């Protein structure tokens, strides 16, 4: 509610400034011009949106699969923890802007370099909260499972994995916003479709309003994904939001 009010106020100020200052449309388009572009270019925007949305969704899926596998491996093996954790942090410092064109040179204009870049960026924020949640599982709970005669795998399946679910969802939520940025960057480095590709073509043609419209769609998509994950969290993990619940 407050977010909507704030957004409206900002849009109003922006509109007033764009209309009254006489600034050129291709430098700063008014919100009304962006809205018009959203409507007029809807077919174009939609076809490019499906490309980018696919890159974001698939890239996050790849990051989720690899990230969870990595977190579990590190959780089970102290040697892997020592070996992989520094590499993980190192992977986060790779300047995507430089790597993206290289990946395009290697793998072409298709989906592969986009998936790689989105996955690379989302990997770390998924691994860290997941691993953290796995590590925070109560030592007494592990002892309890041992007195029940549980195997390491049973303890993982019945206690550790469910306890880590809030961490996984936190990681996925953190990834959503940066996944959108990563997909755009990857498209800027070389692509033939997508919202980033559309922006790249629109700006030199003085179609700034169209580029802004693409940004609006991308933001809306990220917000929607975030909302979806929050909803999933509430529905699937109601226990994680109860003040009275014991920490596992």
């Amino acid at each position, binding site marked *: 509610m407050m977010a909507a009010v704030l957004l409206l106020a900002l849009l109003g100020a922006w509109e007033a400034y764009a209309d009254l200052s006489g600034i050129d449309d291709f430098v700063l388009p008014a919100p009304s011009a962006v809205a018009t572009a959203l409507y007029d270019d809807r077919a174009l925007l939609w076809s490019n949106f499906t490309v980018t949305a696919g890159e974001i969704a698939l890239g996050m899926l790849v990051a989720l699969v690899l990230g969870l596998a990595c977190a579990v491996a590190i959780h089970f093996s102290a040697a892997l923890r020592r070996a992989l954790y520094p590499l993980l942090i190192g992977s986060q410092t790779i300047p995507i802007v430089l790597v993206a064109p290289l990946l395009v040179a290697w793998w072409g204009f298709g989906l592969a370099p986009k998936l790689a870049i989105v996955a690379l960026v989302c990997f770390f924020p998924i691994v860290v909260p997941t691993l953290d949640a796995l590590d925070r599982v*109560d030592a007494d709970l592990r*002892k309890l*499972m041992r007195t*029940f005669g549980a195997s390491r795998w049973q303890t993982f399946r*019945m206690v550790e994995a469910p306890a880590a679910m809030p961490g996984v969802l936190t990681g996925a939520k953190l990834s959503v916003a940066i996944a959108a940025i990563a997909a755009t960057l990857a498209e800027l480095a070389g692509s033939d479709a997508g919202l980033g590709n559309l922006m790249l073509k629109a700006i030199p043609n003085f179609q700034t309003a169209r580029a802004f419209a693409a940004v609006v769609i991308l933001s809306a998509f990220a917000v929607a994904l975030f909302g979806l994950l929050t909803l999933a969290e509430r529905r699937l993990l109601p*226990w994680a939001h109860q003040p009275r*619940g*014991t920490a*596992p």
Partner: protein
Amino acid sequence: MLTRIRAPGAAPPEVETELGSVFLRDVVKTFAPRRRGVGAVTALDGLSLDAPAGEIVAVVGPSGCGKTTLLELVCGLVAPDAGRVDAAPAVLMAQRDLLLPWRSAVDNAALALRVAGVGREQARGQAAALLYDFGLEGFERARPYELSGGMRQRVAFARTLLSGRTVLCLDEPFAALDALTRQEMQDWLAGALAVAPRTVVLVTHDVEEAIVLADRVLVLSPRPGRVMATLDVDVPRPRRRTDARLVELRARALEELRA
């Protein structure tokens, strides 16, 4: 809340198993220093304890006298540095209920059964029957955060019983509860153990709890823990807290603790 005790002749809630015993002789356990400059800690120094099958032995002592270590030895979670530990398979029940917040009461109670490979429906059936006996009828599907502290502790106890272990190690099981609920739960536990007898090693710093529940009370010294006194509680059950013999034993135990 009262314990629902089944009418005589009704089937017992779970299969009767032969009760195990616990035997500790001259046990020593030392923990290596965690940091430089901190000496090794001797938790137990020559402790001996006998809990024959079906007996309830309480261990009281000041904080940090190695009581929790004692239970971990009995449960086989740690090995002694010296001495002998002979114990039937034992299960640990801690001060915190340690219920899994994502599982319902009945699924929490059934946890040990599921670990043992019992099918979901059968495990739930057994757990639900025991929860009924424990006065938790209607709360089977409740999540732990929807239950009161006493109810959660009863679910934890149901889970402990259903593990099929004949030796129960109770580590200050009611310390996290308020005084009134604690007394209620002690009476309740006495009733539950009367119906389903087990060999019990109860560790507590509540002398009254020890006297009310146990057949024998061991008083431990401050760290390193060893047995300073043994009190036999030769009072028939059900016991009343105000029973003169219990009150006298309690006074003696407190005296030993202060010595």
